[in-house]
């Protein structure tokens, strides 16, 4: 028993120590990946996130292009979304009204025996299928998250890198510009922009991406300021590397931890900002739907139809929580100081010791 414990100790340390990296020849990426996969909560969150995305996009299908407005199809006389629609495997869509099945449209979902029924998440007063609506909302939120994550990471890295590497006038100009954006609260700027140019997920994602990069830019700048003084940068410069090569091949890979961790945190903030804006009516607006907008639409119905309210909210929490856990796992994986060792004190250890002693006797 004692030997086994020792073994796990050394295994843990092997994953972390620099010596092991040298002898085994592991790259930083391999080490980070191994540590990340050892973080169970983060891994489970990543899988959950993948599943939610997969179900959301395949179930009700997607609409590509078009204005997104609802139009009446002249042939079938049914409502349809303007644009090219790839249908999904779910039989209902998010914009048409269906016959109310249960009394008041209560969810038909049965946990035991598991049976989704016709409308697992219930229906609203008009008979719209809440499952389809929530799935469409998740699609929209995911689009915003990905756009915000991508755009603001790229912007933050480029602006932070340029101002940290070049310093001087360009630096102070870029940082004052960052200050200008920071001084306007994100929710306020997002609301003003969203009301003027927004309306659908893509435009809102782009707009939020254009304003959410400020914190990352400051962090990347700080990283660059300290890294550019290191010897390996001098060595690269003496070898004749251009500024661009030094930035992208030598300094950026060394600050990748900060970038990746903060990009995930940005994405979890993005879903909360998007849903809040949509809730206020300045984000994704009708005819398109988002999770926040569903909650805002059914706000008063909580007492009579709580399912209209529970499901979209639970999915917002699940997505934000999963992204936060992934971010936490990434931070642990990139930062070797944050290692976790088994505890040798406390009640559980005491009980283990007691059991051990009993076993020996």
């Amino acid at each position, binding site marked *: 028993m004692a030997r086994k414990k020792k073994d796990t100790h050394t295994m843990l340390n092997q994953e972390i120590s620099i010596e092991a990296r040298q002898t085994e020849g592991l790259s930083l990426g391999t080490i980070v990946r191994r540590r990340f996969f050892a973080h169970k909560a983060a891994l489970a969150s990543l899988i959950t996130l993948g599943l939610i995305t997969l179900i959301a996009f395949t179930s009700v299908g997607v609409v590509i292009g078009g204005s997104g407005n609802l139009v009446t199809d002249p042939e079938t006389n049914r409502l349809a979304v303007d644009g090219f629609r790839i249908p999904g495997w779910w039989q209902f869509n998010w914009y048409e009204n269906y016959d109310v099945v249960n009394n008041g449209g209560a969810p038909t979902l049965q946990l035991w025996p598991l049976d989704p029924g016709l409308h697992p998440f219930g229906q609203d007063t008009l008979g719209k299928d809440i499952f389809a609506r929530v799935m469409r909302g998740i699609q929209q939120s995911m689009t915003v998250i990905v756009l915000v994550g991508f755009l603001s990471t790229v912007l933050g890295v480029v602006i932070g890198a340029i101002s940290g590497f070049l310093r001087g006038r360009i630096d102070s100009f870029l940082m*004052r510009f960052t*200050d*200008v*954006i920071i*001084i*306007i*609260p994100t*929710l*306020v*700027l997002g*609301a*003003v*922009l969203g*009301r*003027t140019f927004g309306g659908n997920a893509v435009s809102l994602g782009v707009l939020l991406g254009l304003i959410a990069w400020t914190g990352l830019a400051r962090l990347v700048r700080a990283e660059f300021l300290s890294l550019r003084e290191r010897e390996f940068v001098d060595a690269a410069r003496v070898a004749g590397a251009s500024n661009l090569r030094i930035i992208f091949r030598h300094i950026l890979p060394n600050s990748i931890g900060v970038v990746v961790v903060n990009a995930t945190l940005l994405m*979890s903030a993005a879903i*909360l900002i998007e*849903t*809040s804006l949509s*809730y*206020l*009516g*300045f984000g994704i607006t009708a005819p398109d739907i988002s999770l*926040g907008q569903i*909650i*805002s639409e059914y*706000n008063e119905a*909580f*007492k009579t139809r709580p399912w209209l*309210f529970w499901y979209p*909210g639970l999915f*917002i*929490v699940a997505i*934000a*929580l999963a992204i*936060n*856990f992934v971010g*936490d796992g990434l931070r642990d994986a990139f930062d070797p100081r944050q290692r*976790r060792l088994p*505890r040798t*004190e*406390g*009640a*559980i250890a*005491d*009980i283990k010791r*007691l059991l051990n002693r009993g076993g020996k006797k």
Partner: protein
Amino acid sequence: MLSFILRRLAATLVVLLVASFIVYQLTAISGDPLAELRASRDPDIQSKLAYLSDVLDLDTPPLLRYFLWLGGAAGCLVGQCDLGVSIAKGQGEVTELLAGAMMSTLQLITLATILSILVGVAVGMTTALRQYSGYDYTVTFFAFIFYSLPIFWVAVLLKEYGAIRFNRFLADPTFTPVTLTLVALFLALVVTGIVGGGLKTRVRSFVVSGVLSGAIMTWLNVTQWLKTPSIGLVGVVLLTLVVSGIILLLTTGFGQKRAVIIISAMGLIAGAMWLPGQYLFFYLTGFTGIIAMIAIMAIIGITLGLLFGGDAKREIARAAGIVGAISGLILVIDEAMQYWSQYLGLISIKSGFVSTIGAVTPTIKRQDNLWLTLLDNYAHLILPTAALMIVSVAGYTRYARASLLEVMNQDYIRTARAKGLSERVVVVRHAFRNAMIPIATIIAFDISGLIGGAIITERVFAWEGMGALFSAGLGHVDVNLVMGFFLITGLFAVVGNLVADLLYSSLDPRIRVS
């Protein structure tokens, strides 16, 4: 130092100007401010439209109109504010609207901020001291969940479970044996987790805290305290003694006899002030009575400390003063609680104590009684405060934990332990104070952001504050109102930034501003 402040202010002034220009243009092009009026069928709509577009200078292009607005705003520097009129709020003066809204928002966020800092720092630091324990993991997990909660969703849940069902419970406040056992077990688990230690200590703290909380709840059942809550003479003494214990733990420790005696005496003095306090509140009405009470108790504490403190009189006087001020506050709360049944009689029976909407009850406002108004404010603040706290407590917990962990790993902490100092002194004197430096700057920064950050909370709870002004302004393309909101939040942000910088440099001698 002065030149640093001046340079910083000049730089941020430019930043503020550019930012306000951007917000002005974006709001101005977002729509037609007179769209609603144009649609109306009022016969003299033409003259109204002409009048409004004259008042709002709508004929001037937004690029130039901004400078007209700036000219009016610059008047604030010489005491003649002109931020224009608001069309969203019945053509009222923006400055007057802002003044009212700011008071309301400050009322909303003050309590929430203070409570979340206290709770967040306390929880965060205890988790850091019990790193990787079950308690730590549980708190971390819940901090993550709270951090991921959309506030508008929480608010609706709070309205249902925190207000409507809780009010129903308050109508007949009796714990069933099952809830009593479950709550006692839960509290015992929490206490055990915080206390930590080996198996023996844990079993002991589990049993003691479980029995104690069970006993308290049985007592609440028997006396029906929740129906007519009051503190009373005994309550004042006991609460002050608890506060004394906490303050002693955080300042001088229980080793100094003089400190323990003087600070415990404050409990008895608070009890002795109970009856005279009633007269004081009777003769000194209004807020003067409240402030006088707190000041008197603080002065008594400080005097006692200075007179009998001996060698450590400054430390003891400070601690006794803090205990005194808090005991004064307890006496004030006790006085307000005595109006409880009168308050319940005045509000409508259906709604219950915890209010879900708005900031005041009209019937209470008409009574014009300070204590009833206080209770009414409190009843309306419970839910928004809880909603605001959930998110910020999670943040402060993470910051405080990280900060204390960082400090506890420093070499000087090892040195302090090696000198043979007790763990309490190491944590309170050496670690806690240094761990508070980064948190203090975060707090300064956060408070400045909160003034405009309560937009959603205000919407959900129908609170007429800054956030409501912003939503209304943006909804009606009311540029003047949005700009007024931005001016206030921007100024707060600038001042908050500056205060955070100065705090950091004055608290941490290693950092110099230049």
